[in-house]
């Protein structure tokens, strides 16, 4: 891979990465000594405090894309991509509000634990399969980025970089389980934030900004020069529908991401989970604002120096090599590596939970917890190795876009979780039908599989925004309407929610043993939601 970025002394880069990995392995080893039960392995013993968890949540959410991909897209698309990124900060608060604390109350390991309790085994298999596919896609994207980061850092061939980085990563995550993933993620978030923000101060000072003392928000004095160089930089460029389409695909998708939900579940209590979200929003806001300033500075750099950045995803590194000493540039690279590792850690822990706890709970319900935990370890290892193997020659469909996968998740899993938690009428068969039909439809109408059958074009189609505007509201509407119909067909009574299913809902909302049939059972509001969803569906079908 041709690189515009090169450390003048490769050994400094190697030293920084080795030191980081020694810390990750040490944390993983110490964590492994605390892991004695499935609760420890999948949920860190439900013991993580709010600050550590807030850092961990932010690190798990902020992937390698925060350091590489998004900056490249800001360089290409400018401000609209900043708006797309901003709204991701509401994903964990929203999931905590809508179902996170309820599922924490039932001590779920993953969202699929709730699906099993609420909808039974067949539905669990459907949701688990979708979630595992998306987690593999997610981990694959991070693994490719990690391989490329090592390739850049050490100047070795991509395949060698991938194997070394991949195995080293899978190793410390497997050793540490959720305890290790949580503490490592908290540490990684600190490294990422320092690596993103502090060196930018020096870069901004060199660029002549008086706001170098606080890079995330104090670069307003560079705006006039920026507007002179790129007059369209702050233009909003797209119509209202483009911005609205962010909600179904990119807000509702991440709400169901199992590795984000699992961070909420590791909290020491329901109240602690909510406090963690407050810390999360502060930490993530700081890091994301750092990302926006790098995107801004990258555009400013190209416009003011006349230099062309041929590989925009290396913008942060190029700026640091250009303006900062080698040691600082190497540390920034270490920050990018930490960003990738924290997300892979979350992805692999989610795969472990989905297979070891949820899938094995369906396939072998009588298996003892020790054995299930071993399956979890095996799934984690196999998931990591699969991502490494796929990353050698990645199938185009799988790596086209992690962002596209969010739309798939919003179509297949989000309605199941949200309606399952808030609506007693949600029917098991309706879930399987709507999730499978709309999930397959989302894949078909994307440009990645059958380009001739595609809703939308260009970027909105590639990112799944136009497809999501069709299949996500359709999935919600189908699930609601089919649930109402199926619950009233006596031949399908086996799929109707039982009293036990309904009692789960009251319990996870905190009512204890006080069950009442009328709670969460209304029909009018869901029908109104279905009508609104159908209106959005038809809006999404209009030419883009």
């Amino acid at each position, binding site marked *: 891979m041709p690189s515009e970025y090169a450390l003048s002394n490769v050994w400094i880069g190697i030293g920084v990465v080795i030191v980081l990995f020694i810390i990750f392995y040490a944390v993983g080893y110490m964590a492994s000594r605390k892991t004695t039960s499935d609760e420890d392995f999948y949920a860190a013993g439900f013991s993580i405090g709010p600050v550590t968890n807030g850092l961990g949540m932010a690190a798990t959410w902020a992937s390698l894309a925060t350091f590489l991909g998004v900056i490249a897209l800001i360089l290409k698309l400018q401000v609209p991509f900043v708006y797309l990124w901003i709204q991701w900060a509401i994903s964990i608060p929203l999931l905590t509000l809508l179902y996170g604390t309820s599922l924490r109350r039932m001590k779920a390991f993953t969202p699929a634990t709730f699906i099993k309790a609420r909808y039974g085994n067949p539905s669990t298999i459907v949701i688990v399969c979708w979630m595992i596919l998306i987690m593999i896609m997610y981990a694959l994207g991070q693994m490719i980025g990690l391989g490329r980061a090592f390739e850049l850092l050490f100047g070795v061939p991509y395949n060698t970089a991938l194997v070394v980085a991949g195995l080293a990563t899978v190793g410390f995550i497997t050793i540490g389980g959720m305890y290790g993933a949580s503490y490592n993620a908290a540490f990684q978030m600190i490294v990422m934030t320092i690596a993103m923000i502090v060196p930018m101060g020096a870069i901004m000072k060199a660029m002549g900004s008086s706001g170098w003392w606080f890079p995330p928000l104090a670069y307003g004095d560079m705006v006039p020069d920026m507007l002179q160089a790129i007059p369209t930089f702050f233009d909003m460029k797209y119509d209202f529908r483009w911005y609205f389409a962010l909600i179904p695909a990119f807000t509702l998708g991440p709400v169901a991401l199992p590795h984000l939900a699992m961070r909420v579940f590791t909290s020491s209590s329901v109240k602690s989970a909510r406090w963690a979200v407050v810390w999360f*929003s502060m930490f993530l806001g700081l890091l994301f604002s750092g990302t926006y300033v790098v995107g801004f500075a990258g555009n400013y750099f190209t416009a003011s120096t006349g230099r062309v950045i041929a590989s925009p995803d290396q913008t942060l590194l190029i700026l640091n090599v250009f303006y900062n000493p080698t040691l600082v540039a190497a540390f920034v690279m270490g920050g990018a590596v930490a960003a990738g590792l924290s997300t892979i850690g979350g992805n692999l822990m989610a795969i472990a939970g989905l297979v070891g706890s949820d899938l094995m709970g369906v396939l072998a319900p009588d298996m003892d917890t020790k054995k299930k935990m071993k399956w979890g370890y095996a799934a984690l290892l196999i998931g990591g190795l699969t991502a490494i193997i796929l990353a050698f020659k990645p199938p185009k469909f799988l790596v086209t876009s992690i962002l596209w996968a969010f739309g798939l998740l919003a179509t297949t899993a989000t309605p199941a979780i949200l309606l399952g938690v808030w609506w007693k009428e949600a029917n098991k068969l309706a879930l399987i039908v709507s999730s499978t039909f709309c999930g397959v439809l989302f894949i078909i109408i994307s440009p990645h599989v059958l380009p001739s059958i595609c809703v939308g074009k260009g970027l909105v189609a590639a990112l799944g925004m136009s497809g999501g505007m069709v299949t996500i509201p359709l999935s919600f509407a189908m699930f609601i309407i089919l649930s109402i119909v199926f619950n009233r067909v006596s031949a399908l009574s086996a799929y109707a929610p039982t009293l036990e299913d309904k009692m789960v809902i009251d319990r996870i909302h905190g009512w204890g043993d006080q069950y009442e049939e009328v709670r969460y059972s209304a029909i009018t509001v869901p029908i109104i939601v279905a009508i609104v969803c159908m209106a959005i569906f038809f809006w999404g079908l209009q030419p883009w």
Partner: protein
Amino acid sequence: MKDKLYRKEMWITVIFSVLLLLTGHSASIFVLFPSLQTGTMWGFPTQYIVPILLGWFGIAGVCLVMTLVCNKFDDEMEAFAEENKKEKIIAKE
């Protein structure tokens, strides 16, 4: 009491969902009302800096209030569930 708690839970969920959506998607407001795109703040165009600020401190503020309100609501629910449990025990006796 139980109806009041149920309604309160619904309202809390709806209000904070809307507030989170508004703070996360505030850029849409500038598209809907282009006349808002004329000002500046701290040297930045408002349509740029306001969504960034709301996406950071706005969300954090909503999360803080949400945490205080929801944790207080949990206390009320726990007190209700506890009272209900005691009543059941007394009725059995």
